[in-house]
Structures are given as C-alpha cells and as structure tokens.
C-alpha cells in the first residue's frame, strides 16, 4: 500500500509537470538576440538604434544591415517613434527577441544628446526591471551607428571596448563617467545636472589582411558633456574635466607636468607627476543674508612617474618623504588650483551644477537651501569658492 502511494505521487507529479512544462515561455537561446550594447541616434523624429548582439555564427563579421561587428558579434538596427518601438523593430526584422539583460552600455549619438531631452530615451530603460540600471550611458562624437562600425586592434566587441575604456579610465586616465540610474536620479535633485563621457574615435586607416578596408583605430574617452534637466549644455575643456575629476572622483589617477630646476644632469628637467592618493574635504556654509562659501581642501600624495607607475590610486599607503621639491610642489599646487577653478567657472558660467554643489548644500541645509536657491536665476554667482592644495603632508 505504501509503495502504491509513492507510485501514485510520482505519477501525479509527472502529470503536473507534463501539463505545465509548456507554460513557461522560455525563449530558446537561438531565438534571442543578446544585446551587449546599444547605440541610439535621433533623426526625422525617430529613434534609430543599433544593437551589438552575440552571434553564434563563425562567418565573417558582416551584419545584415551592412555594419560590422567583432568576431562574435553582429549589428542589427531598428527604428521607431519611441525606443520601445525601435527595439520591437529589431524583433520584427530579425525574428529574434532582443534580450537587454546583458546590455552594458548605451551610446548616444550627437543627433540625440545635443538636440533632444534624454528623458524620453532613458526612461524606457529605467522602467524595464530586467535592464541593469548600473549600465553605462555615454555620448559619442558623430553618429552612434558609425561608432559601432569601427574596429580596434585589441577588442572584438565595440561595446566591451567602450566599457573597458570608460570604467578603466576612472582609475587610470582620469575620466569621470556616469551610469543610468545615477544620471537620471541626479536630474531630479536640486542640482538637476550631471555629466556623461563623450567617446570619439581616433582613426588609423589600414587595410586588413582580408583586403577589407576597415576603419581601425582606438576609442578615446577624454571628453565630458554636461547636462541640465536632461538637456545638453556644453562640453568641458581639458582643464575643466581635470577639475571635475579632482573634486568628484575619489579613486582617479591624474597626471601633471612640472619643471625640476634642481635636477642633476642624469635627471630630466621636465617631470611627469602622478597622483598616488587623494582626499578632498569640502566645507560649505550658507546664511540667508547671502553669504555662501564653498571651501575645498585637496590632500594629494604625488610621485614622479616611472616605468612601474601603474596608474592605480591606492588608499592607506605608508608615509614617505616627498619626491617633489618645493618648486615642483608649488607648480603642482598651482595647476590643481587652476583646474579646480576652471571647473567652478564653467559651473557658474553655464548655471549647470555638474559638480553637485547644490546637492551638497541641500544635504546640509535641507529645504532652506532650496528656497534660497529659487530666489536666484544663478545661485552659483553668489558662492565664494576657495581652494587649498596640500601636497605630500
């Protein structure tokens, strides 16, 4: 009887499984287009998207739309009045369901980020729970579609190459970046501003072994675009970008050039300096009589760049005697101060709070600051900025 009961249970479970096995709408891998990255342009009131998707085909990397991908990716395009319709267009064209869970980067073309508000575009991704809110958002010079046709000698996927260059840059070459949730969220704060990295392509035309003329070169992530209320404001200059990095990116390597007057014959007169560690202390004060101060102290540990300089900024390094002479320190101090003031000037000039200063006041003073800020068209003109740089102390 006991055995009969067990058999009945097994049969019942098997029946239930058979009944419901088909109910799980699992799209087979072959029917999915796994998107690694997406480029978006905006032309004629339509979003044009280009998706880099994983391809199991080992054939040449030509896509159905004429673009190229890396060895394991292909490019597919779609267009529509909204991003959702453009993504659906990809599905309609290819018969494969675009799967955005692996999408790590969205590249916005110039026609989109310079002309249109980004809220329409990015809110689609934000509302999709399966889409990673930590995905990178970046801009590019020219069209995003064109960028996806480029080839780098070291990477097999444009999306991977862009992700690596941007996020690697934060620690190694001092480029700040933003991700989707952060960018959208900051537009809704009292600052209502943020920045995005701008990617460009440094072309080195060459003929590949197969005889194809491909635009080969390297991606460059040296520029930064600033946005207020989801709209493009301006691109930062090199100095302003440096100022932004010094103030807002805690673990960012940065380089400077100074002259060493005391150098012996065996040492160079012009010296490359790298930042080993950095700490920024900000003190902000505000009273309703209109006196607003924003004092910044930047503590820097710097070293002469050598062959073993890795570009990594490390915390908790042991104290050592400074390698920099007083004169070198003075130059470095001046350069850092100039860069930071350049960043402050841009903020005041554009009224675009890409440094998040308004948010800092809000966190300290709450609604009192918001009410005060509303009384001015450009409250940053009222702020007295000061910068103090402390080197190797």
């Amino acid at each position: 009887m006991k055995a009969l009961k067990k058999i009945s249970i097994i049969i019942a479970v098997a029946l239930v499984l058979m009944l419901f096995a088909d109910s799980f709408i699992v799209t087979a891998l072959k029917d999915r287009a796994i998107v690694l990255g997406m480029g978006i342009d905006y032309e004629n009131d339509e979003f044009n998207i280009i998706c880099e998707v994983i391809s199991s085909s080992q054939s040449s990397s030509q896509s159905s739309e004429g673009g190229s991908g890396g060895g394991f990716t292909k490019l597919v395009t779609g267009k529509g009045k909204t991003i959702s319709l453009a993504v659906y267009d990809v599905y309609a064209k290819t018969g494969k369901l675009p799967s955005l869970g692996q999408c790590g980067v969205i590249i916005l073309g110039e026609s989109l980020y310079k002309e249109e508000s980004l809220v329409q575009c990015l809110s689609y991704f934000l509302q999709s729970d399966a889409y990673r809110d930590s995905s990178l958002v970046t801009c590019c010079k020219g069209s995003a579609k064109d960028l996806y046709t480029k080839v780098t000698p070291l990477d097999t996927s444009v999306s991977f190459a862009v992700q690596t260059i941007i996020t690697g840059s934060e620690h190694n070459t001092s480029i700040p970046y933003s991700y989707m949730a952060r960018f959208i969220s900051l537009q809704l704060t009292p600052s209502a501003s943020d920045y995005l990295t701008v990617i460009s392509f440094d072309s080195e035309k060459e003929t590949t072994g197969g005889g194809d003329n491909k635009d080969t070169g390297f991606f460059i992530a040296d520029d930064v675009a600033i946005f207020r209320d989801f709209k493009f404001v301006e691109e930062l200059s090199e100095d302003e970008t440096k100022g932004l990095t010094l103030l807002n990116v805690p673990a960012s390597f940065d380089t400077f050039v100074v002259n060493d007057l005391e150098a012996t014959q065996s040492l160079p007169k012009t010296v490359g300096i790298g930042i080993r560690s950095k700490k920024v202390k900000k003190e902000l004060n505000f009273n309703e009589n209109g006196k607003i101060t924003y004092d910044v102290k930047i503590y820097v540990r710097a070293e002469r760049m050598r062959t073993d300089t890795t570009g990594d900024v490390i915390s908790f390094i042991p104290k050592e005697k400074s390698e920099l002479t007083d004169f070198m320190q003075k130059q470095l101090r001046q350069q850092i101060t100039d860069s930071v003031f350049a960043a402050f000037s841009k903020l005041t000039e554009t009224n675009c709070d890409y440094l998040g200063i308004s948010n800092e006041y809000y966190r300290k003073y709450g609604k009192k600051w918001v009410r005060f800020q509303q009384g001015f068209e450009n409250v940053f003109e009222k702020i007295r900025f000061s910068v103090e740089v402390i080197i190797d102390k």
Partner: protein
Amino acid sequence: MNNKIKTEQVAMMLMLIVPVGKYLSLPSVLAKGAGRDYWISIILVFVVDFICFLAFMWALKLNTERLSIKDIFDRTIGQAAGKILFAIMFIYIYLRAAVIMESCLELFSVTFAIKTNWFAFIIPIAALSMFMARKGMNNFARLSEMLFVIIYLSFGMMLFLSSRNANFTNIKPILDDGFQPVLETALKNTFWFSDFSFMAFIMRDYKPEKKYALTLSGAYIAAMAVTVFMNILYIALFDQLAVQSQSVLSKVSQFSVKLTTSGRVDWLFVSIMLFTLFIKATLEFFCCNECLHYIFNVKKHKNPYWTNIAVALPMIIVPVFVNVKDNIFDLFSRDGYGFVFWIIQYGLPLFSPLMTYIANKKEKEKVIYPRRVEE
C-alpha cells in the same frame, strides 16, 4: 528522531524571513510615503516589534508545561474568543503569504526575463507548501539551518558588491520634511512587519535553552539591522528613483557587477535569495494550516488534507481573477487599514506572558489535583 526545535534553528529562521520580504515592493511603497527617510519608519516599527518580541520570549520561558497556543487561549480567554483570534491570525498571515507568492513570480520574471502563467508557477509551490505543512515546523527549522550559510553568504556578497557603487550621503538631509510623514508611513505599514508571529506555533515544540533570550534577541536585532541597512543601500543607489522599483532585490543586485564583461553574477544571488522567499511563503502557509486546525478543532495527529487544500486553493485561483497584490497594498499601506491586525501583531505578544502564566498555572493545578485525591 528528535522533533524538538533548537534555539539556533529559530534564530536562523528569524534571520532568514525578516529581511527578504521587505526587499521586494515594500521599499518603493514606503518611499512614496516618507521619501528618503522611510528607513526611519522601518526602525520605528522594528522598535515596537522588538518590544513585542521580548514579551513573547518571556512567554516562551513561562511556558513550562509546553502548552500550545491553542491550549493557552482555551485556558485563558476561552474557546470562542480563541477561535476569533485564530481567524484574524489566519487572515493576516494568509494575505501576507499571497503577496509573497505574487512577488516571487514577479522577481523571477523580471530577473530572468521568463514569462510564465500563474498556475504553472503556483501549483508546484502550493504542492511543496502542502508537503512542508504536513511535515511540521521542525522541517522549516532544519531547512533554515541547512540553507542559512549559503543564503547569507550570497546576501552579504550582493550587499557588499552593490554598496561599492552607493552614495550613502543620499540619505541626507534627514527628516527634512519633518517627523510626521515618517510616523504616518510607519503606522500605515505595520501590516508588513511582526515577522516573529510564526513563533506562536512553536510554543509546544520549543523548549527555551540556556541563553535562549540572548541568542534569539541577538538574531532578531541582526535581522532588523540587515533590513535597515538594505533599505539605506537602496536609497544610496537610487535616491530619487527609490519610489519606482517593483522588485527592489532584483534592482539592487544589478549593482553587484558594473561591467557586462564580468557576466551577471547577480542572477546567482537572486536565485539563492528566492529560496528564502519560498521558505517564508511555505512557513506562512504552514501557519495558516495550523490556524484552520485550531478553528475547526482538528486533532494534531490527524492533519487532514482538506485544511491544506482549503489554504492552497484560494491562493491558486483568486489571483487569476483579482489583482491580489495591489489590492492588499492599497488596503494595508495606502489606506492604512493594517491596524485591524494590531491585536495579533502587538496585542497578542504583549499579553502572551500573562496568558501563558495563567494557562500554565491552571495546567499545573490540573496535574497536581488528581495526586492529592490519591493521597
């Protein structure tokens, strides 16, 4: 086989079921009410919960005769009032279980982008719940003990990796809108707390061991601390967008990996966390089943199938016709009708030491009396 439940097992059950249920839709609901200060609302409710929990632990100590909650009701407030309390308890736990079930499906669907129909999802879980309910509380205790380490390792990794991308200054300014919205949100959302309610059903099987109070209150404090940290992390990651997410666990875990070049390790975390939701849901199913036993005077050893089916059937069928989750959230969060269950959530634990003391005293007298006759 020893069917008694150990203190460590109860501690692990508490640590598993307290945090995870509050990391699905609840944070965005709370954020709508109290903004970035909603984590303070959570602390407020937890403080009240903890006082009740301490009272309940005292009751466990006073329960020297190992009486069940039904025995205690019968010997203090009487059978009729006891049944009414069980009926309220049944509704309270049942509604929570129904929301957890739907949230599980939602988490599963949004994380893995796999759509499924409700029956295909719920019938295997209902079958599992029925099986677990028949095996008794001891089964949950052992399961929690078995999975605790792996679940907390994955949980810890997820929180640690995600917190690297968080900006914790987002929680400031604290109480910028005053204390009123925080208090109101706390009062309106009590329905989702008091997770120790299941302990009412372990009174007979659990014998307090040495230092039980320290172990259990330590576990409860740890679980509360984890919950508060999780919610602070959510604000630190999403700030103004905290009101939008439907499945917070899925959203926060996405920050465990920044680059897609590293793959989606967060999917592994979510898969493991789903176990906790299943444990919580099946435990609540078990408690509902026990309530029905008490209401309909079912003897413990009989454990008929009809009570299992009575619990499972509405849970399977009703969501197809009614938007259960949103209606429950509207009723007990937006409209604040959660107070109807305060008698179970707060009244019962606070009075439990007194009731347990009286019931045990009566039980002892009942045992002593025949001996005196014999003498």
